[in-house]
């Protein structure tokens, strides 16, 4: 799975969770830029990513993530 594949899958998850079909995210997108990205939706995002990509995160891994790019980097490590 390429980084682009991962990114596209993550973008679809963001569109689903935030109920915006045309939402565009990029590597630098963070919770500061999406109004509804609160703590509960953050949990829902992580759960959706775990289920879609069949991976599991530890709390320590998630606490250091600053933006979507960092999340995708972590996912890439787990998927290769």
């Amino acid at each position, binding site marked *: 799975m390429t980084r682009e594949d991962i990114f596209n899958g993550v973008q679809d998850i963001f569109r689903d969770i935030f109920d915006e079909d045309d939402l565009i995210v990029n590597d630098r997108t963070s919770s500061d830029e999406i109004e509804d990205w609160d703590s509960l939706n953050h949990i829902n995002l992580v759960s959706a990513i*775990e289920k879609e990509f069949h991976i599991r995160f530890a709390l320590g891994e998630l606490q250091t993530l600053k933006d979507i790019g960092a999340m995708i980097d972590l996912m890439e490590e787990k998927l290769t």
Partner: protein
Amino acid sequence: MNEYKLSNIKIGLEESFSVVIDSSKLDKFLDISNDLNPLHVDNSYAKEKGFDGRVVYGLLTASFYSTLVGVYLPGKYCILQSIDTQFLKPVYIGETLTIAGKISYINAAYKQIEIQATIVNQNGQKVSKATIKTGLIDE
């Protein structure tokens, strides 16, 4: 009341309970919600529209999803986050409903669990189904 913690919850864990729907429950729900729709309060109107009688409020039956997670699975340490539900068949006064839930997913990092739940009537017909997400405040 059950007291499941994250450490003793596994995928596939199930709990269920049953309840009889009597007219007093509809009256109390009406008092709380003020939903005066005749389908729920007027027996003749409901029959005219093709139902067997007053239709039990969908959200009254769905309120038992709250009981399912708050009392049974996981119970005491539950904090309800979302319920995505569908109402599949009408429910009538006098029916016995069995509410059941099964753990389908565990997010260990954030202590969130997902429960696939159903409500089945005394004839074995599924009247409602739901996907429920709850957190666990067990520490």
